[in-house]
Each structure stands twice: as C-alpha cells, then as structure tokens.
C-alpha cells in the first residue's frame, strides 16, 4: 500500500491533518515525536541525543555536529522501516531524500496559519541547514495544501483522492527502491559513529560506501569496514571509496 509524508513547519497544523487523514484511511500515524520515541526504543539510542538533533545551535560551521549526524542516521533508518510496513502517515520534516526516491509515497506540504510561530521559524532554519533547501519549496512535494484557504475536511478529501491516483501505487520498482534504501540506511547507521561523513548507496545487496577517511594510506580501515558491512543481513558485495568523485561515478552510475 502507499504511504503519505506530511510536512509542515507548523507542527500542530501538520499533526491535525495527519491525524484526520490517518483516521479516514485507517493508516498508522507517526509524528516526528513518535519517530524519536520509536527510534530510542527500537534502536536503544538515547532519546535525549535524538531530541538534541532539532535544537537550534546544533550546527558547527553550518553543518550538523557529529553527534547529531549519528542521531539523524538512526531516525532515517527507523523511517525506512516504518515506510516498509506500508499504510503510514508520517508527519515531520525529516527524510525528504528518502521520500523523493519512493514513488508510492505521496508527499504533501501543508501551509497556513496566519502567523509564523517561533517553532515554525526554527523548523525552517533547521531544514535549510540540514538539507540545503527551503522547507516550503513546493517543488519538492506532490501536493501543497494551504490551510489558510482550505478547510480541514476538504484538505483530507484532496489528499485521499490524490493518493488514489494509480501513479502513487506501489510497484516492483518502488518496492525495490525501498529495500535498497532500507539496506543503505542500516549500513550508514553501522558506520556513522566512526565515520560521520559516510555516504552509502545500495542496490540488490551490493553496497557502495564513501568516507574521506578511506583515502590512500587508510586501506586498513577500509578493509575492516568492508568486513563489518559484509556481516550485515542482506549484504552480498561491498565497495569502499575514499574519493567522493569516484563514489559518485560508480555508485550513482549503478543507481539512477
């Protein structure tokens, strides 16, 4: 079944619509707060460290600090698991790159509210710093609903009817994408504590890993990483790169 990702800088606005849509479709509702609690519970990761990811001031030279990158990798892994279970309404602004790669996830932006709250401003700032783009840029979504002009019941109807379009139906390809994303997120979680800059791509059990730490002279750690990753369920083959350019050429050449 398809899933829905609802994004709104204003938490209450997103939650209100998410709750109504989930109830209408009999889907599971997971908010950002729920995601944090589930990640802490299922992965045994400190809840405090997950909450810190979203606090302002969590950046160093415009980038997330190592601690927060580790937490974010766990959240994204958890999100992959939740989407894999189907019939999900997720309300939150993490994982836009994940959702953009799964054609059976309907991405909805909720705008509205007469005044922009302080929390909303913090969310916009956080999103820009982490993902490098505007949270409210409609081009990243399949549907934008302005609650300033559209009533709740009408918004729910629009989302429900849009989801019925055949193009949001799961297919073999989108399921393959999800399996690959789930595997790459598990590999990333495995490595991110030691290599915070790690990037991972996976396709059908083959895994490509990049970190600047694997550049020349560090063959030892690259070999160790390879062995470690090969120990994960579902991994058949691993390549490790210390060159970002080479990683992009090879891994992204395999996975379009």
């Amino acid at each position: 079944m398809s899933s829905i990702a609802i994004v709104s800088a204003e938490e209450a606005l997103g939650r209100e619509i998410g709750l109504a849509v989930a109830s209408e479709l009999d889907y599971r509702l997971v908010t950002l707060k729920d995601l944090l609690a589930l990640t802490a519970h299922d992965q045994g990761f400190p809840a405090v460290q997950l909450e810190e990811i979203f606090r302002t001031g969590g950046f160093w030279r415009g980038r997330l600090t190592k601690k927060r990158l580790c937490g974010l990798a766990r959240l994204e892994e958890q999100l992959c698991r939740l989407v894999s279970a189907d019939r999900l309404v997720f309300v939150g602004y993490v994982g836009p790159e994940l959702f953009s790669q799964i054609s059976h996830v309907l991405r909805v932006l909720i705008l509205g509210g007469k005044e922009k709250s302080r929390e909303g401003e913090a969310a916009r700032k956080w999103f820009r710093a982490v993902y490098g783009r505007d949270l409210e840029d409609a081009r990243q979504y399949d549907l934008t609903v302005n609650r300033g002009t559209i009533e709740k019941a009408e918004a729910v109807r629009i989302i429900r009817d849009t989801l019925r379009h055949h193009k949001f139906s799961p297919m073999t390809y989108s399921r393959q994408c999800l399996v690959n994303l789930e595997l790459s997120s598990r590999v990333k979680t495995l490595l991110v504590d030691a290599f915070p800059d790690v990037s991972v791509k996976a396709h059908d059990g083959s895994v490509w890993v990049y970190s600047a730490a694997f550049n020349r002279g560090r063959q030892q750690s690259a070999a160790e990483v390879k062995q470690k990753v090969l120990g994960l369920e579902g991994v058949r083959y691993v390549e490790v790169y210390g060159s970002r350019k080479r990683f992009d050429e090879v891994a992204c050449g395999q996975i379009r």
Partner: protein
Amino acid sequence: MHTVQVLLLDDEPIVGQRLKGGLEKLGCEVETFENPLQAMARIAEKRFDIVITDIMMAEASGLQVLEAVRKTTPEAKVIVITGYATTALAREAMEKGAYDMIAKPFKPSDLRALVIRAMQDLGIPAPPAAE
C-alpha cells in the same frame, strides 16, 4: 484452455533470448521484438494478454508502446522494464496505465513472478509448477 499471449520488446536481443524460455515454461506463447515500431504494428493486428516492454529505445519509447496497447487492448497488462528507472518515470508509466515496472538488472525469476501475478489478475490460473 487459453494460452497466454505475451509480447516481449527490448532493443537488446540478449534480453528477449534470456527471458523467452522462462516465460514459455509458464505456458505462455511469446513473441519477441527488438524494434518498437514492428512491435506496435504487431500489437495493432494481434491481441496480447501481457506486453513486456523496455523504455529507452531508438525508434520509439516504451511509453508509446504502452499507449498503443492501452488503445487497442485496454485489458492487457503492460510490464515496463528499464535500466533508466526514476521516480518520475515510474509515476509516468503508472499514470499511463502500466501494470508494473521493474528496474534492470533483474533476475528472470523476478519477471516470471510478475507475469504469474498478471496472469492471476487476468483470471488465468498459473501453471502448477509456477505456483
């Protein structure tokens, strides 16, 4: 008993050669094509139950083939196979009426599983060996 008619189109001959035998084992009668224009001409004259088509081909795109099938045999199941899969393409193919899409490279068994599902959705029982 109805023999499932399958048209398999890919401009790389190896794809048709590799997949044809497996589909015949399912009891399908398979016609393979490497040229989309010839495939579309055949679609215009014969009713196929399942059409399997590549997307990126020189003479015409697989989406054009999909549209041709939708016009002539709307009940046919069209399975798109492509080495250039993206979210946008997947959605476009589904919007145009594809039954499913699978990214290359894939295992022949993955495609067979898809064809069996398509057969079941057409109300054609799959051969016992395939169950």
